[in-house]
């Protein structure tokens, strides 16, 4: 019986302290009765080996004790779908917020690859902290819900509250000839735009990323960009950020299957702003001389030609964008008209 005492002592160590004595007393009574039954059946006392085999069959003390616990899981099946949804959503939005934060920080301070690398290397830490925090919150909710079921009625009935009519409209199939995008494709697009944003933010302090070795010639050349380029630059940054946010919201709402006409039109309309800024500049001075008094005579003619070419290109680009926008509006209006006509028939 010494072996049984040791076994029960080991089980006791893993039991909740306020129920230990009661459970062990009951388990002892049951196991002793079983032990005696076995000995009666054999007509002799159990050998140590037989007693060991019997206890091994009952199970390891920690496992036996665990069965007596009210909660044997961190997050139960009722709460798990909500937990999983919140976890994915939290990780997604925290990553977006963190990425934007890092990009802005890199741009505002002295931008460098080291700062960017530091931001990227901290991603696992941010992800783990977010996941751990969400898990901890849900584990606490589960713990309370298990012990005080009456106080958390909403958990059990939350799935009953949904209404089918509140579901988002069905995505259109490929009837219009456009292949639906996969989620991976949509996520990859967001990542690409984000990388574009990082590239843009590095540009002012690292022209090398745009011009390559030509950046050295730029600093040595007698030419410089007009102040309007700074306004245009920030317009493009804002437009890229806007696109990231738009795409993220679409991903969040599950509307990634096709790029919306509305998105195209809004981006095209907003894209006209930097072009308009450039075109509205007086005497088309997009490029100026660093030292006009010194270099006007030598480079003045070439500068005029360069500025005129830029102006012409911008004018052409503006016209193309306006036409694209008008084309989009026309198609959208036609679609709406057809739908309305079909609905009236």
């Amino acid at each position, binding site marked *: 019986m010494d072996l049984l005492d040791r076994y029960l002592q080991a089980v006791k160590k893993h039991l909740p302290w306020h129920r230990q004595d009661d*459970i062990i*007393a*009951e*388990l002892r*009574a*049951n*196991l*002793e*009765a*079983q032990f005696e*039954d076995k000995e009666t059946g054999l007509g002799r006392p159990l050998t140590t080996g037989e007693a060991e085999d019997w206890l091994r069959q*009952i*199970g390891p003390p920690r*496992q*036996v004790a665990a*069965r*007596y616990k*009210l909660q044997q899981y961190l997050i139960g099946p009722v709460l798990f779908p909500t937990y999983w949804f919140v976890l994915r959503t939290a990780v997604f939005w925290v990553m977006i917020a963190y990425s934007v934060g890092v990009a802005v920080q890199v741009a505002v301070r002295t931008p460098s690859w080291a700062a960017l690398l530091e931001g990227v290397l901290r991603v696992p830490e941010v992800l783990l902290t977010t996941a751990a925090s969400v898990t901890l919150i849900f584990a606490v909710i589960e713990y309370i819900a298990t012990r005080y079921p009456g106080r958390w009625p909403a958990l059990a009935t939350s799935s009953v509250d949904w209404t089918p009519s509140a579901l988002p409209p069905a995505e259109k199939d490929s009837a219009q000839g456009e292949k639906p995008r996969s989620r991976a494709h949509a996520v990859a697009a967001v990542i690409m735009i984000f990388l574009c944003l990082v590239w843009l933010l590095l540009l002012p302090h690292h022209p090398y990323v745009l011009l390559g070795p030509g950046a050295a010639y730029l600093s040595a050349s007698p030419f410089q960009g007009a102040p309007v380029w700074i306004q245009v630059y920030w317009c493009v940054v804002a437009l890229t950020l806007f696109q990231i946010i738009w795409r993220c919201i679409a991903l969040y709402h599950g509307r990634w299957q096709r790029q919306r006409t509305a998105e195209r039109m809004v981006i095209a309309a907003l894209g006209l702003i930097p072009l308009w800024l450039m075109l509205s500049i007086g005497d088309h001075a997009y490029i100026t001389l660093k030292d006009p008094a010194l270099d006007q005579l030598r480079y003045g003619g070439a500068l005029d030609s360069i500025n005129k070419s830029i102006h012409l290109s911008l004018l052409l680009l503006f016209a193309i964008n306006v036409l694209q926008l008008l084309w989009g509006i026309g198609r959208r209006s036609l679609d709406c008209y057809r739908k309305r006509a079909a609905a009236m028939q």
Partner: protein
Amino acid sequence: MTIAENLFENLRMELRRGCLTLAVLAQLRQEHYGYTLRKALADRSLEIDESTLYPLLRRLEVQGLLTSEWREEDKRNKRFYHLSRDGEQIFGQLLEEWQAINASINSIL
């Protein structure tokens, strides 16, 4: 254990879980303490591990389906369990459900 054996074992455990509760409730229409309950079920070819049965009795008592009392028998203190009034009602409902499922499966087979 192969993947198929493991899968079968998991499904078997899942299938048994509800049935064991029903069997325990049925057997506890008569008073038993843990070990005699286990023997009574085993006599009807329903073997249950000690580490499954004894905690199950505790849970059913916490849920109000069983009542229990400590009493001395054969010079040893034992905890005797019996189906409570709520337990009888729920047992009746579960039994109907089980019979309906059984009948449905039999008709499918």
